[in-house]
């Protein structure tokens, strides 16, 4: 027969001593934190797991960091990693294996290696970045065109964050008097809820994306160790695909979070984010002023140019018209002179002709007269031969009967008185 049955305590006590005698006093262990709680007395209770590559849990164990140890480990870890110990984190811890009759199996964490987590975080971050890149969304928000005047600003922040107050004050008291409309979409900005809360705020803004010009995620204040949510894949994914440009002013000093990397513009602090927006306005303002100047100048120049053109035409017109007129007057005068010359020559010519005629007429008439005179002389001579007195003197006589010269003796009867004209006188006789 076997040994008599053991009580539960006896059995577990045996297990305890087996564990105690067979396990080393400490091991360096690599695992993922799946749960983490700190109770009121400062003890930290965790659940550590190991997953298969597919994701199924392969091993799981409770672990404890006693308050006295946790008080030292926590700041040490956070100073190095700038992240709080939290679920999802991979850690390298020194553990001793404990078995207690009442509380069962657990690992007692006595030390931690933050640089391992740091490396894991960097690796994880790079994986997320690679994933966003391979999904083609990494640059999407950066590709959005920042509005020239980002006036309506949707802010995601916690209502009480000092950073939000700084941001608001900075915008509202800008020296140029630009007016911004700032609408806060409150969200939890740290811890495990942050991711879902910020995404919910983004969703609310998305419903009014026509109204808003830009989204600003600001954090400011709070612990530097609470930034791990900004390395979250889904938050980054949401920021990437948001239709409005997203600015971050998360306010951490060293390496950038994934949210910063995918945001349109990353700014160090909320104040810097406000400065950025004011600068944007100021830039646009300057551009408009410069345009106004250039415009004024070119318009004025154009008008002056036209004035000069008209003046030039006017100046040109007068002398051209005058010249044209004086040309015409000149040619008129030339015509006059030519006309006068022609007329004079013509008159001279005609006068010559006339004079020649006058000369000819004199000579001709003299000749004519002479001819006539000569003819007259001849006639005279001939007449002289015919002169009845001369004929009478030569012995001829004319007999008149009844006062008429008698040519035929038969015309007269006997006993008629006739008269005969002789050279020296009349002779009266009677016919027989």
């Amino acid at each position, binding site marked *: 027969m076997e040994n008599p049955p053991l009580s539960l305590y006896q059995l577990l006590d045996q297990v305890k001593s087996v564990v105690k005698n067979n396990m080393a006093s400490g091991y360096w262990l690599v695992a993922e934190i799946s749960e983490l709680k700190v109770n009121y007395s400062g003890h930290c209770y965790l659940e550590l797991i190991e997953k298969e590559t597919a994701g199924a849990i392969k091993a799981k164990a409770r672990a404890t960091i006693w308050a006295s140890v946790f008080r030292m480990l926590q700041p040490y870890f956070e100073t190095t990693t700038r992240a709080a110990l939290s679920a999802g984190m991979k850690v390298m811890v020194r553990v001793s294996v404990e078995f207690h009759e009442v509380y069962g199996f657990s690992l007692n964490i006595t030390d931690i290696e933050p640089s391992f987590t740091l490396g894991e975080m960097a690796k994880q971050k790079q994986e997320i970045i690679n994933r966003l890149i391979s999904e083609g969304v990494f640059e999407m928000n950066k590709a959005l065109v920042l509005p020239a005047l980002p006036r309506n600003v949707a802010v995601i922040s916690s209502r009480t964050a000092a950073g939000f107050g700084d941001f608001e004050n900075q915008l509202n008291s800008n020296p140029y008097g630009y007016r911004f409309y700032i609408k806060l979409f409150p969200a939890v900005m740290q811890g495990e809820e942050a991711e879902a809360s910020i995404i919910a705020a983004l969703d609310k803004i998305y419903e009014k994306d026509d109204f808003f010009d830009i989204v600003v995620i600001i954090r400011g204040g709070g612990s530097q160790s609470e930034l791990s949510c900004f390395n979250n894949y889904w938050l980054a994914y949401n920021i990437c695909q948001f239709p409005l440009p997203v600015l971050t002013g998360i306010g951490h000093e060293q390496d950038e979070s994934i949210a910063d990397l995918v945001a349109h513009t990353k700014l160090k602090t909320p104040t810097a984010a406000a400065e950025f927006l004011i600068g944007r306005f100021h830039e646009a303002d300057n551009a408009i002023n410069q345009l*106004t100047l250039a415009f*004024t100048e070119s*318009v*004025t120049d154009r*008008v002056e140019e*036209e*004035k000069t*053109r*008209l003046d030039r*035409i*006017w100046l*040109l*017109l007068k002398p*051209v*018209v005058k010249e*044209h*007129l004086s*040309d*015409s007057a000149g040619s008129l005068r030339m015509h006059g002179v030519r006309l006068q010359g022609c007329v004079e020559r013509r008159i001279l010519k005609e006068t010559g002709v006339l004079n020649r005629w006058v000369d000819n007429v004199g000579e001709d008439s003299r000749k004519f007269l002479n001819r006539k005179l000569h003819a007259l002389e001849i006639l005279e001579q001939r007449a002289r031969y015919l002169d009845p007195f001369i004929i009478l003197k030569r012995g001829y006589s004319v007999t008149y009967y009844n006062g008429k010269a008698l040519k035929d003796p038969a015309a007269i009867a006997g006993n008629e008185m006739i008269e005969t004209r002789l050279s020296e006188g009349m002779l009266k006789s009677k016919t027989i």
Partner: protein
Amino acid sequence: MNKKNLSYSEAVSSIEEILHQIETGEMDIDELASKVKQASELLKLCKGKLFETEKEIEKILKEMGNE
């Protein structure tokens, strides 16, 4: 062409055409007086338009400066 509806640039090119005709001596003396008169009227029209434009522009620019 109706003078009232004449654009500034049409007016200016008309003036320049007249000027050219006079310069090159293509212009008849019979036409000269009426053409010069026309040119002078067009010039007056242009100057008037230019003046109006300038005044208008000054006003607009001033308003722009005041904003």
